[in-house]
């Protein structure tokens, strides 16, 4: 008996020890497992972004997909049957014999009327239900898109952290497509552009972000940084000041403001009395080279030149004057709708101020000593653009030369001095402008005859020539700005661009005002002069440009009216199918 009890006690002890050991082993095992599984977990989480699509393949189709369609039809049929039956049923019940007067006394006309009403409505109700469903669906769709945008943003941020700015850009762009109303995405993309030194793109993205959410200080800060890098000091200062209104203790903004102030002071001191904000033009890819010139590195001679907007009078004895035939100079008004520019010499960088064409500069002997040394101010490096510039220089006959006075210069040496100086404050501009006005009137009269593709280069009265077709969207934008208020030139300019070329030219996102300007030209000039197929082609190709839908979204009612007028015009065309027009119309959200 005692031994049995003892044996049991021993066994119990053994079991307890065993259990304790087992548990100990398990816990130790589990600790190791925890470590392993957490690593795997992290890997899976990291891979989550990419590996979705691969697993989606090899799956069987959704069950009963065809059956469902059939069923739905059947349900529709039965539903309509029910309605019919209901109506019939109601009729048979309401039937009271004409001789049954007591029954007619009890007959409730209002109730019967209400019932009749009800009988006729179910169909409408079901439709309403469907509408609600559709609305709900849309809501979900939107929510999903927003969620997608956030996921893309997070992914983009991850890439950004690792320094892969291009991949981050792609993510942000996808996110913006999913949810165009989120200000964070363009702001983040702007940051990535800043890192990539694509400052103009960064600025335009910031503009968009600010448009979407005007109370987002980071967008202002980034735009400020972009503008600072583009040497738009004043605007940069405004941006950083805007940041300070949101967040008065923002260290970055304070520091940047201080820097800008110093820079402005420096440029002011260095003698440039005129506004000293330069906008270097970017090259086609929009990438600013690291050789870009900032205000601080301005060449002293450029800074020291006297104001370039003053035309120096000059006189020369008749016998000293050049015997060469006179050449007509293009004179443009600069700065009426653009910010003032300090003309600056940038040698060998290929930079070129917006849309200003200058004559080529062959090597020349120094001009007469009486004149102030022609500084490099007013001279642009234009090696690349030599050809098109030559095209815009017209040879004028003597009479014309007399009429335009100082604008026509005797020889190329003089051209150098007077070429594209701003003509203000002297007696000449008045003359020239009046000439220009008169000539424009003339071109307008002449237009119907010459419209069929004849470039008006021979029209010597043209003070501003039609720029060559643009090769990128910046050029297009600046040309549009330059040709503002000259519908004929605008028309010719746009006409040069083959419709198919639009998406190619506008590699950058389409700005709403550019779209509007183009539409306006189409309406003003294309409708009277061009056939409908061409207008349709242009409209169609415009709709293929990047971020076109965004630009459409920002169209005001007047702008939409312009688009509508265009569509009304082309709607009657025989050679364009109605369906394609309506499809395009929806793209323009009309």
């Amino acid at each position, binding site marked *: 008996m005692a031994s049995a009890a003892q044996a049991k006690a021993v066994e119990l002890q053994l079991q307890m020890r065993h259990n304790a050991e087992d548990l100990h082993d398990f816990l130790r095992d589990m600790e190791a497992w925890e470590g392993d599984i957490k690593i795997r977990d992290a890997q899976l989480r990291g891979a989550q972004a990419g590996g979705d699509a691969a697993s989606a393949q090899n799956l069987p189709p959704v069950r009963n997909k065809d059956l469902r369609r059939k069923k739905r039809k059947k349900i529709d049929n039965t539903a309509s049957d029910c309605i019919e039956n209901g109506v019939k049923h109601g009729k048979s019940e309401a039937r009271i014999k004409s001789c049954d007067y007591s029954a007619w006394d009890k007959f409730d006309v209002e109730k019967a009327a209400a019932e009749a009403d009800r009988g006729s409505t179910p169909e409408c109700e079901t439709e309403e239900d469907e509408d609600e469903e559709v609305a709900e*669906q849309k809501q979900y769709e939107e929510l*999903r898109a927003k969620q997608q945008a956030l996921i893309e943003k997070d992914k983009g941020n991850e890439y950004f952290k690792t320094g892969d700015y291009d991949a981050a850009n792609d993510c942000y762009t996808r996110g913006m497509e999913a949810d165009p109303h989120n200000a964070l995405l363009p702001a983040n993309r702007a940051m990535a552009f800043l890192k990539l030194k694509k400052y103009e793109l960064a600025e335009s993205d910031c503009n968009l972000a600010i448009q979407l959410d005007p109370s987002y200080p980071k967008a202002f800060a980034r735009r400020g940084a972009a503008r600072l890098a583009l040497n738009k000091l004043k605007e940069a200062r405004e941006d950083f000041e805007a940041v300070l209104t949101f967040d008065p203790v923002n260290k970055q903004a304070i520091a940047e403001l201080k820097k800008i102030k110093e820079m402005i002071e420096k440029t002011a001191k260095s003698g440039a009395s005129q506004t000293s904000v330069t906008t270097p033009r970017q090259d086609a890819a929009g990438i600013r080279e690291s050789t870009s010139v900032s205000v601080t590195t301005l060449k002293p001679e450029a800074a020291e030149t006297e104001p370039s907007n003053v035309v120096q009078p000059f006189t020369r004895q008749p016998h000293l004057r050049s015997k060469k035939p006179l050449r007509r100079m293009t004179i443009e008004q600069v700065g009426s709708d653009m910010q003032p520019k300090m003309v600056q010499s940038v040698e060998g960088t290929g930079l070129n101020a917006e849309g200003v064409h200058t004559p080529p500069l062959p090597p020349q002997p120094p001009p007469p000593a009486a004149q102030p040394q022609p500084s490099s101010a007013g001279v642009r490096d234009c090696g690349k653009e030599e050809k098109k510039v030559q095209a815009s220089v017209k040879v004028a006959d003597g009479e014309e030369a007399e009429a335009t006075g100082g604008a026509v210069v005797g020889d190329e040496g003089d051209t150098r001095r007077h070429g594209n100086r701003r003509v203000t404050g002297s007696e000449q501009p008045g003359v020239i402008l009046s000439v220009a006005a008169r000539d424009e009137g003339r071109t307008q009269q002449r237009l119907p005859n010459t419209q069929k593709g004849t470039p008006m280069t021979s029209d010597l009265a043209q003070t501003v020539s039609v720029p060559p077709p643009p090769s990128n969207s910046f050029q297009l934008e600046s040309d549009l700005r330059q040709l503002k208020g000259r519908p004929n030139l605008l028309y010719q300019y746009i006409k040069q661009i083959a419709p198919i070329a639009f998406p190619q030219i506008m590699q950058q996102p389409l700005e709403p005002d550019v779209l509007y300007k183009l539409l306006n030209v189409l309406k003003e000039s294309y409708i009277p002069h061009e056939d409908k197929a061409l207008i349709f082609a242009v409209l169609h190709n415009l709709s293929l440009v990047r971020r076109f839908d965004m630009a459409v979204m920002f169209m005001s009612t007047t702008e939409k009216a312009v688009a509508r007028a265009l569509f009304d015009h082309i709607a009657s065309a025989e050679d364009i199918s109605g369906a394609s027009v309506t499809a395009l119309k929806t793209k323009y959200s009309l």
Partner: protein
Amino acid sequence: MAALDKPQIIIHVQKSLNFTLFDCRWVPCSARLVCLGSTARGTGALQVYEVTQGQLNLVTETEKAKPLKCATFGAASLQQRHLATGDFDGNMSIWNLEATSLPVYTVKGHTEIINCIDGVGGLGVGEGAPEIVTGSRDGTVKVWDPRQKDVPVANMEPVEGENKRDCWTVAFGHAHTQAERCVCAGYDNGDIKLFDLRTMSTRWETNIKNGVCSVEFDRRDISMNKLVATTLEGKFHVFDMRTQHPKRGFASLTEKAHKSTVWLVRHLPQNRDIFMTTGGSGNLNLWKYEYPAQRSRKDDDGHEAGVTGSVSLLQNMTVASQPVAGLDWSPDKQGLCACTAFDQTLRVLIVTKLGRM
């Protein structure tokens, strides 16, 4: 069985929470688990915890408009690990646990509370499309494919005019080829129905006289083997699903498990013959099924009929004072499991010696 080989059930960690817990699930391939339920003010709670060296750390926490009743990872791919949930309002939603603010997929599938949910086709287990099945108080059982919006791919509802019974539990099974797939549903009146999704018909039905609280196949991704159904009054039934007799259906055995409602049955992922049942008084029973020498025999008419084996209780343990309504074995670590009880406590349990069974 020698006392030495008995598995032990040990509470590893427990954490008292401030909402009513309905279900918990291990996130596949991780040491994280999701628990969900209803807050005091009638909203849904979704929390993710991570087990780290004997501690439960809260990872994320989200509040939803409606209380969440049930959840599954069964239809999620391992890359995504999206959680499918059913709520009190009849919405079935799929969530990305990394961004829970908005669902990846959502559908108002039922007019009343979704009691139960199960998924198949994900996690690299089983064949065929990812599908989610939901059972609701409105009497319907619906199968959803996350690739198809708004409409279920299959809908099992009572015939017009018949009483709508509350569906308490659903389970997928038989998903061993791309086409084959079955859904088993248990109802409050004791009905068990087996729907064949390939033929779109009811393959088998029976009544076990008491409300069916939980059904589960021992494996979803094999040709049907065993089905366990637990009932209101404390018993559970084990059906041998290998052989279906044309008249008698599937052979079954009945076992008295708890003194109260058997809320749940969950098979061990690493050993399909071991399963845990949870009782209304907060106790857990661990069972092992022993197969008979011969799984089927011919009856007098020459039809094959199934033969049941036997079940033996391996261990029991009282872990809570209230019913244990949620239990999930870790798919990655044998012997690790989590359970939730109505005492608002989340527990992580360790069951030892399972490898030696």
